[in-house]
């Protein structure tokens, strides 16, 4: 059995009286590439935001290396520094250059000196093919480029897990490929532990090692991608896949 990085235990989340997540349980192991699929409104993004403590849990707990980080006793900032997040809307810092975006977290949170932070930032910007753009500001580059910078920014913190919240949903179709290519390379070449909420079924099927299908705030089915995509057990999973794969 490989090492558990994240364990989600009986997680529930309600906005007022509206329950978005109901008793979610699952585990992320080191090296896993887990994709979370499901219809819009099924709670996928909320789950990811809960894991990064951007939302407070209603009940349940999240264990990071066996330690409960959701109770408020652990400093959430130092936890977040170890768990990277890539957003649908990029959220690059608009007052900084591409390079500074990738350096600021290292310098201020990890207290890495500027010269070392710059080397590291350049290394990861190279990885995503954005090194020539270090002097550009976020509003001067395209959506796909922004997302690649956002990935480099998250990587520069050298996190143990990388969370992706629909990273290609806000992109023009011709830019989806460049971002997926970077993610694919992280998964296959760098063995990055990743948790990806996505509508890209080809990524879920071909790249991920584990697929979670969510519907109406519960995990309807999870397992091997080959199993989920070729032989889903639940009727709802079958319906969802049929609908989305025939599009």
């Amino acid at each position: 059995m490989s090492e558990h990085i994240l364990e989600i235990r009986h997680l529930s989340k309600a906005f007022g009286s509206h329950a978005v997540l109901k008793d979610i349980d699952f585990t992320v192991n080191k090296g896993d590439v887990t994709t979370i699929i499901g219809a819009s409104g099924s709670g996928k993004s909320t789950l990811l935001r809960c894991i990064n403590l951007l939302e407070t849990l209603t009940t349940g707990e999240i264990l990071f290396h066996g330690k409960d980080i959701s109770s408020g006793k652990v400093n959430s900032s130092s936890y977040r520094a170890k768990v990277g997040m890539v957003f649908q809307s990029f959220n690059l810092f608009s007052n900084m250059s591409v390079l500074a975006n990738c350096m600021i977290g290292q310098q201020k949170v990890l207290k890495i000196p500027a010269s070392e932070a710059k080397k590291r930032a350049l290394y990861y910007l190279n990885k995503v093919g954005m090194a020539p753009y270090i002097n550009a500001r976020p509003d001067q580059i395209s959506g796909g480029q922004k997302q690649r910078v956002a990935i480099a920014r998250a990587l520069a913190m050298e996190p143990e897990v990388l969370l992706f919240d629909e990273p290609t949903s806000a992109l023009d179709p011709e830019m989806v490929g460049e971002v997926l290519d970077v993610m694919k390379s992280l998964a296959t070449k760098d063995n990055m532990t990743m948790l990806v909420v996505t509508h890209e079924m080809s990524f879920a099927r071909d790249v991920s090692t584990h697929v979670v299908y969510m519907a109406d705030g519960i995990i309807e089915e999870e397992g091997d991608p080959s199993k989920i995509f070729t032989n889903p057990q639940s009727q709802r999973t079958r319906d969802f896949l049929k609908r989305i794969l025939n599009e």
Partner: protein
Amino acid sequence: MFSQLLSDIGILWSKYGTLYLTGIANTLILATSATLIGCIIGFLCGILQTIPYSQNDHFVKKIILRLVRIVIRAYVEIFRGTPMILQAVFIYYGLPYFFGVSFKDIWTVSIIVVSVNTGAYMAESVRGGIMSIDPGQFEGAKAIGMNHWQTMLYIILPQTLRNIMPQIGNNYIINVKDTSVMFIIGFSDFFAVHKMVSGAVFKYFPSAFMEMAGYLCLTLLASFLLRRLEKKLAGKSNYELVNIDQLVMTAGTYNYPDDAGSPFEEVNKDYKGEGQ
């Protein structure tokens, strides 16, 4: 008529020119320093007012944060809701009355009054500026592990500053003009010189004319400089691609990543990520 005015101004200038200039210098020093301090007060209030707390936090933290918000609210309402001329009198004569301390230095009390007044307005401008920032900027900062102060200092406030620059300019220009009320406690600004000189030589209109022209020049100059500053804060409108090696292809001209890897991977051999 007009030549009469010109000759009167000439007389005033030759006799009291240095006084007028000192007045202008005092006005500028007071307005500039008070606006800067006011901005700092405003930004501080902005940071303190937006410290988040949730249901799960300790009740002491919640009470303190709520108290902080109430105090800032009261400060803003009191200093925004009363005339500055009265605040000057109130503080200048009030402090010795209650605490037995008096301000020997008219400069100190003037700067305090104008700064605190500007701070009250700036606190609201900053709050509005912070509210106008995309929530994604806060989340992006949180997601890489920044705490509230770091998020504010490095991400949110620089963007807020850029957005509220026009309001800061507004406040500065208002301060250049409105520091004239500080004559009430004996501060010798540009307007105080007018009161003194015109009273001594009975040339009210020529002196007022000089004052009008002087203030207008100051404010025009100020708004010109502020526009320049705004443009500078907006950053460069273009950028240079950085090709470390001229023969290396730039993004978009190759199909990354394939098994051959990125052409850029050759560039940084001195750094490899952990666990590679």
